[in-house]
């Protein structure tokens, strides 16, 4: 895990998607951002960060799937 002091306040996140890539610049304020992102402080090599964000991400996915079924499941 990267230590807090070396985590930049702003990161660029690139996420592969079916039809291209989503680019976000967002504060690091959520576990998912910690667990799957490319941190590029200056010209430093890309570092894939993997921390305990996997669990909250699975929980978010679970929640979204339930909400989707709730919203559209009967249609």
């Amino acid at each position, binding site marked *: 895990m990267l230590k807090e002091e070396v985590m930049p306040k702003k990161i660029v996140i690139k996420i592969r998607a079916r039809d291209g890539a989503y680019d976000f610049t*967002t504060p690091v304020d959520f576990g998912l951002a910690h667990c799957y992102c490319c941190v590029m402080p200056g010209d430093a090599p890309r570092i894939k960060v993997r921390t305990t964000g*996997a669990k909250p991400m*699975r929980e978010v*996915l679970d929640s979204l799937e339930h909400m989707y079924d709730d919203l*559209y499941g009967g*249609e």
Partner: protein
Amino acid sequence: MGSKEGDKRFWQSWGDSQADESPEFDRGQAWHKHFTSFLGVAPEEHWVFKGRRFKPWTSRNLGAPGLFNPIIAMVLSRGGGLLSLYVLHLLAEKPRFGNDIMKEIEVRTRGGWGPNPGAVYPLLTSMEEREFVEGKWEDPDKRTRRIYRLTTAGKDELERLKEVMRPKLEDAIQILRQLNSDLDLDVEGGGYA
């Protein structure tokens, strides 16, 4: 998780409009017109989408607003429009009061998402001002619990929001599944890539 045919109207027609490759085609202007035509109000004035988090939808200068996924952005940075949609949905089931809505969301997401009062009560007030919901005190003398009921205008708005957000929610789930799969592989490999 297939889309209903009717749900393709908003995004399908937007996709169709992208076939225009003439140099005069102004994508930002086209998106603004498309959005306004469907939702009845410009994106920068829409009650759900006008915030800074929806900048790709509200700015006319960004290239591909259709690619922007507010739910993924929400998951990554909090906030977003899913709460508005889901609260309307819960009120479509039956009249509810604020605390009931918060508890219900927490139960249905199995504790995964518990909106706070600071988000829910202003949202309900905003919905009432827009006449999407009608609020009445359970006991007008005590004024402790305000019961909200969805109006016809609120039901129409719910259907519009569902149509706009459905493919984005589907996309968000697929992307999260992919990320989840990637992370599982990472666990096998260990350490940083």
